[in-house]
C-alpha cells in the first residue's frame, strides 16, 4: 500500500445527526415531526483501511455516507476529513475536497447517464476539475481507466445500454477513480450484481485498493461480502451504531443481540451446515425512525431486554480492546 498509515485518522465522524423534517399543509406549511435518519454516529477511519457499514434499510448507513460526500448537510455533528471539518469549508475548498472523496453507487443502471457515451461519463469529472483540458489527453486517460477496471478501452465509444450490469459497474468504478481520489464511499456497490459477477467486482475493488492505496467506506447489507472485504465493521440500527469491532472479532464473537440476529439470519450455501443449524428469526420489524422506541432502540425485538432497556439509551462501551457495543446486557 502506498498510503502511509499515520496516527491521525483520515476520516473522523463525531456525533453525527441527520434529521429530515416532515411537513404538512400546502398554504400553511408547518413541521409536524422529523425522521431521525442518523442519530448520533461516531467512528473513524485510518488511511488505507476499509470500514464496513452494515444494517438493514432505513438504518441510516446510506445517509451517513451522503453526509460524508457532502450531499447532505448534517443537522449536527462534525465530519473531520484529514483533520478539517468539511462542513465549514468555503466553496473552492469543498470542490478541492470532492476530488479526494468519490463514490460508487449501487445501481449501475440508474447511476450512468443513458445518453452519454462511456468515454464521456468517465471523462466528465476530469474535464470539470480541469485535470486534462485537451481532448487527446483526456481520451488517453479514459482508455487507461477502462483498462485498469478490466474493460476493453474501446468501450469508451459505447453507450451504457450496450453493456451488462457488471460492465456498467466497472464504468462506475472507473468514473470514481478518474480524479485519483484517496477515499471512496462504496454504497452497496456490488448488491445489484449477479452472483457470478459480484466476485469479479469485489476482486477489482481489492486490487484497486492495493494499487492506489485507497480507503473505503463500504456500505452494504450483505454480511458475507463485508466480512470478506473489510478490516473493521460497524453495525447500524435505526440511526445508531450498535456494535463496532475488527472484522474477525465481530464475526467470530458478536456481542450485540442485533448483530447476532443478523448473522443467524444469513443462510450458508451448504445444505448440510444448514440442516444442523438451529435457527429462529428475530421477531418484529424495524420500527419507524420518526418515532423510535425509547431507551435502547432495539429493545422491542430483543431477547435480552429488561426493564432498564426501555428507559436508558445504552452508549457504546469498549468491552474488549477495539470492540465497542451499545448494549447494557452484555459483558
Amino acid at each position, binding site marked *: 500500500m502506498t498510503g502511509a498509515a499515520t496516527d491521525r485518522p483520515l476520516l473522523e465522524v463525531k456525533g453525527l445527526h441527520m434529521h429530515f423534517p416532515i411537513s404538512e399543509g400546502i398554504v400553511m406549511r408547518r413541521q409536524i415531526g422529523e425522521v431521525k435518519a442518523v442519530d448520533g454516529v461516531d467512528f473513524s477511519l485510518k488511511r488505507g483501511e476499509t470500514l464496513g457499514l452494515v444494517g438493514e434499510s432505513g438504518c441510516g448507513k446510506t445517509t451517513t455516507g451522503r453526509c460524508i460526500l457532502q450531499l447532505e448537510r448534517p443537522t449536527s455533528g462534525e465530519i473531520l476529513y484529514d483533520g478539517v471539518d468539511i462542513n465549514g469549508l468555503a466553496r473552492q475548498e469543498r470542490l478541492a475536497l470532492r476530488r479526494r472523496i468519490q463514490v460508487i453507487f449501487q445501481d449501475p443502471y440508474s447511476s450512468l447517464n443513458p445518453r452519454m457515451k462511456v468515454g464521456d461519463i468517465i471523462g466528465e469529472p476530469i474535464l470539470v476539475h480541469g485535470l486534462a483540458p485537451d481532448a487527446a489527453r483526456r481520451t488517453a486517460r479514459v482508455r487507461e481507466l477502462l483498462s485498469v477496471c478490466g474493460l476493453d478501452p474501446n468501450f469508451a465509444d459505447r453507450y451504457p445500454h450496450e453493456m451488462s450490469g457488471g460492465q456498467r459497474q466497472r464504468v462506475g468504478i472507473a468514473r470514481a477513480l478518474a480524479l485519483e481520489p484517496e477515499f471512496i464511499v462504496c454504497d452497496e456497490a456490488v448488491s445489484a450484481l449477479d452472483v*457470478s459477477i459480484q466476485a469479479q467486482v469485489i476482486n477489482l475493488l481489492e486490487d484497486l485498493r492495493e494499487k492506489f492505496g485507497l480507503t473505503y467506506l463500504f456500505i452494504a447489507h450483505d*454480511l458475507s461480502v463485508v466480512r470478506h472485504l473489510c478490516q473493521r465493521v460497524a453495525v447500524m440500527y435505526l440511526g445508531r451504531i450498535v456494535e463496532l469491532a475488527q472484522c474477525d472479532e465481530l464475526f467470530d464473537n458478536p456481542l450485540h443481540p442485533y448483530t447476532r440476529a*443478523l448473522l443467524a439470519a444469513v443462510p*450458508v450455501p*451448504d445444505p448440510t451446515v444448514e440442516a444442523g443449524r438451529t435457527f429462529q428469526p*428475530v421477531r418484529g420489524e424495524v420500527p419507524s425512525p420518526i418515532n423510535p422506541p425509547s431507551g435502547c432502540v432495539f429493545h422491542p425485538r430483543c431477547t435480552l431486554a429488561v426493564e432498564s432497556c426501555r428507559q436508558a439509551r445504552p452508549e457504546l462501551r469498549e468491552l474488549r480492546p477495539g470492540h465497542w457495543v451499545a448494549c447494557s446486557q452484555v459483558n
Partner: protein
Amino acid sequence: MQRRRADSSRRIGSRQGDILLTLDLNTPAHKGETPITLNGSVAKWNRETLRGPMSALLDVRNLHTEFRTGAGLVRAVDGVSYTVDPGETVAIVGESGSGKSVGAMSILRLIPDPPGRITEGQVLFGGRDLLALSAEEMRAVRGGEIGMVFQEPMTSLNPVLTIGRQITETLQQHRGADRATADRRAVELLSLVGIADPERRLRQYPHQLSGGMRQRIMIAIALTCEPRLIIADEPTTALDVTIQAQILELMADLTRRLNVALIIITHNLGVVARYARRVNVMYAGRLVESGPAAEVYHDPRHPYTMALLRSVPRLDRPRQARLDPVEGQPPDLTRLDGGCAFRPRCRFAVAACAESRPALEPAGAAGHLSACFRRDEIATLRVAA
C-alpha cells in the same frame, strides 16, 4: 430439515384448527414410462430411474419460450424439463437472463404475447396439460390450484384496493364464496401468515404496510384457495435480512404443514441450501444441473454450478485472500451458437463443447443430472483445479 420453528408455530399454532384443508393429494398419475425428449433427441432414461415411482404434481416437459426482440430471437427457455412432487420444495437457481422467471411464468401462461410465445412443450399439472387449457380454464388454475408470490409486493398488490378486498376477491372469484364467508376466511388467512390484529389490517391499503407485511399478504393471497403448488419468484430479494428470514421460515412452515409444493426461484445459494430439497440450476435458458440439494452442493457435476459455489464468500469458512469468480460475462442470448452456452467461461471446456449442446443426463448419485460432456470426470478435475 430438523430445525426449530418455535416462533412461527407459536404464532400461528392457535389458529391451526381453524383452517380447513381439503387438499386432494391423489393426483392422477400420468404414464410413467414416457421417454422425455430433450434437445431433439430421445433421452436415455425414463421416469423410474429419474425420480422413482412417485407421481409428480407438476411435470414440465421440454418447455420452450421465445421472445422476438429488436436484437433478434431470444430463446429464454430452451427445452426445460423437471418435475415437482406433492409437498416438495424445489429451488430454481440462476442469474438474470437465465430463464428462471420466464420458465415459471410460462407454467402459469403469464408470458406477454407479443413479444413472447410458448412454442413447444407440455406443463402437466395433476395430469392436465396447462398449455392446452382454454383461457377461462387457465384463469381458474391461476390463484386457484396454483398460487403465486412475486418479488416486489408493492407492485403486485393493487394500491387502490384494501388488503381485505384483494383477498376476498380471490375467494369470491374462485370459490363463489359470499361476502361474510370470504371476510371470515380472510381474517383466518392473515392470522395464519402471522399478521397481528387482522381485522384492522384488512381495512388498510398496501402503502400502509411494511415490505415484510406486504409479502405476508402476498402469501396469504397465494394460500387463499388452498393451492397444491405455490410459485414464488424471488420472494425475499427485496426484503431485509431479518425480514427475509421471517418470510422464508413462514413459507417453509406453511408449505410443510399444509403440504403445498413450492417452487422457489432465487439467485441466493444460501436460501436454497436452507430451504430446498431439490435444486435446478439454469444457465442461458436451459437446466444445466438438477438434483437433491445436498448432492448438487457437495458433488456439483456442472462447471457453472461449481464456479458459482466457489465464487461466493461464506460466513462459515475462514476468510479467503481473494475470491474465485466465474470469469467472463453472462451470455448474450441472441448470439448463442450450437455449442455449450457456458463454454466461453468454462475452465474445463474441450473441443466437443463447441460442436453441440450437451443434454441433461444422469451423473453421480440417483436423481442427479448434469448437462456437461465431462460430468463424470469432473469430480476428479475439480480437485485438480
